[in-house]
């Protein structure tokens, strides 16, 4: 029953999308500036039916309807309700449905929230967005249908991958999807704007809110994924430059650049084509990321199953999207004489864009290079943190200085009247940095520069908080948070302590200033897993702190999997992080212990960064 309902709703949506394209196209020819009511009505119907379609799938997961292959493969009747629901998008088919929902909702919301803008621009946006929707709907229906059924229905499901059974991972996909799938709407708007020659500052105004929404959600999505990796993967880090993480970071760079270039377009009416390129690039990178992780080219937790036909479909879609948008861009491109003073806010924004493009190209190269060498020369290589760290970190230092000075520069022509203040801030940053390494521990030159430049940004932003003129609170919050983020990452990196050793029950080991004692192990039965919980006493001989950490080894039933759960004790100063793994045929357990300072502040900084985006969104909405 649910299978039929779902399939019917999917087909209905294809029909509605085609109808919207048809009516919108007809509506283009009318001379008035009003969009036909039919288009509105069908759009409402489209959004409603896709939501019902999604809830049909959610209910199939809730009632454990194993006649649906997707439910059978990714759920289990004993799974907690929360994970039954999140299981809906914890697989390839369901997550594609989420894709389409976001495409559809954004399409509808863009239509109703941009009434002030020209009719044809809105209609073309709607048409292009619906072509994207159609592309994905066909993909779902023909290749990745979550409503495919098996007969006779199995009595029990296979279960959701245990490492995905996690609150952070339940919300990570929806957040990230609103981010990068949301960027589809300004991809469509950019093409519509080129077709209709709607190229002035009001174009910037029409998409700014959408860029802010997607940027803020993308930031949050990356944050939640990173927190998950921190406590679930048991490696004790928060960013691994894993190709899949990079896939989410690439659109973020493009969005950040776009966010800034729109400022110039909005204020000075230049950089139009550059902004268009960034609009196109953001969504192209999003689809490319989806292609890379779903086709199985990159192996990761995001690769649900290797199915080459799936990859072909997304690749064809991606190619069409890229070539069509590049064609329109080239045919509409008009070289504009850009008059920008080298000392002006415009230049600073451009500098931001250069930096973003530099990061983007670096990460893109690092991500694609192994794929290229493999395809061309059969050579398997992997590009890891050393590459990214050595290329990106030195550049971040200069970037932070620009980021501090840029916002205070004036449009058109700037004068440096605050040189004295900047000099004082630099001295203060150097002084604070000196205090840190004098009282704690010295670190490398590059770390010194990172700390100084981030302090420079933090102090300048704090001073900005007290300025009354040109005060832009959301911007200050975001820049301040970014400064803190880099500072905390730098300090965390330099002051982390890591110990790796083996221990058996009852044994005590002293390593440097730490004493470890494995008191006992307990076997606990939970609803869908058994857990061996260790009780480890850790004494810090320097601070005389004593605490007990309880790492777990979990044995999940459905599917049978072993996972290692880190025990983490967090406070505002540092995290104690401990994982335990069994060693085959031995009484010993391998213990990885880390003391990571200021960890929580890294998360808070990213959350604040995203908050800056949301505040800016409200501000923009209020002013328009």
């Amino acid at each position, binding site marked *: 029953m649910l299978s039929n309902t779902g399939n019917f709703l999917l087909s209905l949506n294809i029909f509605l999308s085609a109808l919207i394209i048809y009516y919108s196209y007809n509506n283009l020819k009318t001379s008035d500036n009003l969009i036909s009511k039919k288009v509105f009505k069908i759009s409402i119907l489209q959004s409603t039916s896709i939501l019902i379609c999604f809830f049909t799938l959610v209910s199939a997961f809730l009632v454990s309807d194993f006649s649906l292959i997707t439910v059978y493969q990714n759920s289990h009747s004993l799974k907690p309700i929360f994970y039954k629901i999140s299981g809906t998008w914890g697989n390839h088919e369901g997550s594609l449905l989420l894709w389409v929902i976001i495409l559809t909702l954004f399409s509808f919301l863009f239509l109703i929230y941009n009434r002030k803008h020209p009719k044809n621009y809105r209609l073309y946006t709607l048409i292009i967005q619906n072509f994207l929707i159609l592309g994905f709907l066909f993909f779902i229906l023909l290749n990745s249908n979550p409503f495919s059924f098996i007969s006779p229905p199995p009595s029990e499901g296979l279960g959701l991958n245990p490492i995905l059974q996690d609150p952070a991972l339940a919300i990570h996909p929806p957040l990230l999807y609103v981010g990068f799938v949301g960027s589809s709407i300004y991809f469509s708007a950019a093409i519509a704007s080129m077709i209709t020659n709607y190229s002035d500052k009001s174009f910037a105004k029409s998409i700014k809110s959408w860029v802010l929404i997607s940027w803020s959600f993308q930031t949050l999505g990356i944050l939640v994924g990173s927190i998950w990796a921190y406590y679930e993967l048991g490696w004790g880090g928060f960013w691994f430059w894993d190709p899949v993480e990079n896939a989410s970071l690439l659109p973020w760079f493009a969005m950040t650049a776009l966010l800034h270039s729109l400022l110039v377009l909005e204020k000075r009416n230049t950089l139009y084509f550059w902004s268009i390129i960034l609009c196109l690039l953001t969504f192209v990178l999003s689809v490319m990321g989806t292609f890379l992780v779903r086709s*199985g080219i990159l192996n990761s937790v995001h690769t649900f199953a290797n199915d080459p036909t799936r990859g072909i479909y997304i*690749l064809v879609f991606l190619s069409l999207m890229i070539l069509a948008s590049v064609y329109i861009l080239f045919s509409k491109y008009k070289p504009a004489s850009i008059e920008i003073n080298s000392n002006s806010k415009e230049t600073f924004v451009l500098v931001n864009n250069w930096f973003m493009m530099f990061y983007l190209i670096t990460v893109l190269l690092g991500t694609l290079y192994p794929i290229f060498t493999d*395809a061309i020369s059969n050579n398997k290589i992997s590009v890891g943190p050393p590459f990214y760290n050595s290329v990106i970190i030195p550049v971040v230092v200069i970037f932070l200085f620009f980021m501090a000075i840029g916002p205070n520069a004036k449009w058109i022509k700037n004068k440096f009247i605050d040189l004295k203040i900047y000099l004082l801030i630099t001295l203060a940053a150097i002084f604070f940095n000196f205090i840190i390494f004098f009282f704690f521990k010295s670190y490398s030159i590059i770390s010194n520069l990172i700390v100084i430049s981030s302090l420079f940004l933090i102090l300048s932003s704090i001073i900005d908080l007290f300025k009354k003129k040109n005060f832009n609170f959301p911007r200050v919050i975001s820049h301040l948070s970014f400064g803190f983020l880099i500072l905390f990452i730098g300090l965390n990196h330099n002051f982390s302590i890591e110990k790796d050793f083996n221990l058996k029950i009852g044994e005590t080991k002293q390593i440097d200033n730490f004493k470890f004692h494995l008191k006992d192990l307990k076997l606990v039965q939970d609803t869908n897993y058994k857990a061996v919980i260790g009780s480890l006493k850790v004494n810090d001989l320097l601070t005389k702190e004593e605490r007990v950490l309880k790492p777990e080894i979990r044995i999940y039933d459905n599917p049978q999997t072993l996972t290692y759960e880190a025990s983490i004790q967090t406070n505002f100063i540092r995290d104690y992080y401990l994982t335990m793994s069994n060693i085959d045929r031995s009484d010993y357990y391998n213990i990885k212990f880390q003391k990571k300072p200021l960890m929580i502040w890294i998360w808070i900084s990213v959350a604040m960064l995203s908050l800056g985006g949301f505040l800016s969104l409200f501000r923009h909405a209020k002013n328009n």
Partner: protein
Amino acid sequence: MQKTIKLITVSLLVFILGIFYLSLNRSSNYDTKFLVGNKLTDIELKSLQSKEFFTNDDFKNNKYTLINFWASWCAPCRVEHPYLMMLSKNKDIKILGINFKDKKINALKFLEELGNPYDYLAKDNNGKQSVNFGIYGIPESILIDNKFNILKKIIGPLNEKDIKEIKEIIKS
């Protein structure tokens, strides 16, 4: 100028999409089989039992050498052990065992219990040496001749078929 930029952009995009297409039809699993045909250079391994080192000189007089990566904690290594014991009776081949990330006591206990098929016993405590051999996981085995050419690479535990194939290579 503009035309050139357009041409370069389109070619670059087509190139990237073409590579994506090629990658689709490849297995993304790590596979070191392509090492077959290459030469092993500069072997330098610490002995498990003494402070000596094994170098190329130790193996150049063997007609064939099978390099086997193993550990006492590795369950599949137990499975392949009887086959190694079988192979060790063959006089045309010498077996070099590289004990991977293991404890000496456990390793020796393992051999005491199941028999020692190795003519040379080396160790790789932190797993770094094995990386140079293109080893991804254990057990893995590499068959080389006296000129250090890699003739065969077996990923995973040796089985009857592998032993048969190795014997055929030795015979020819």
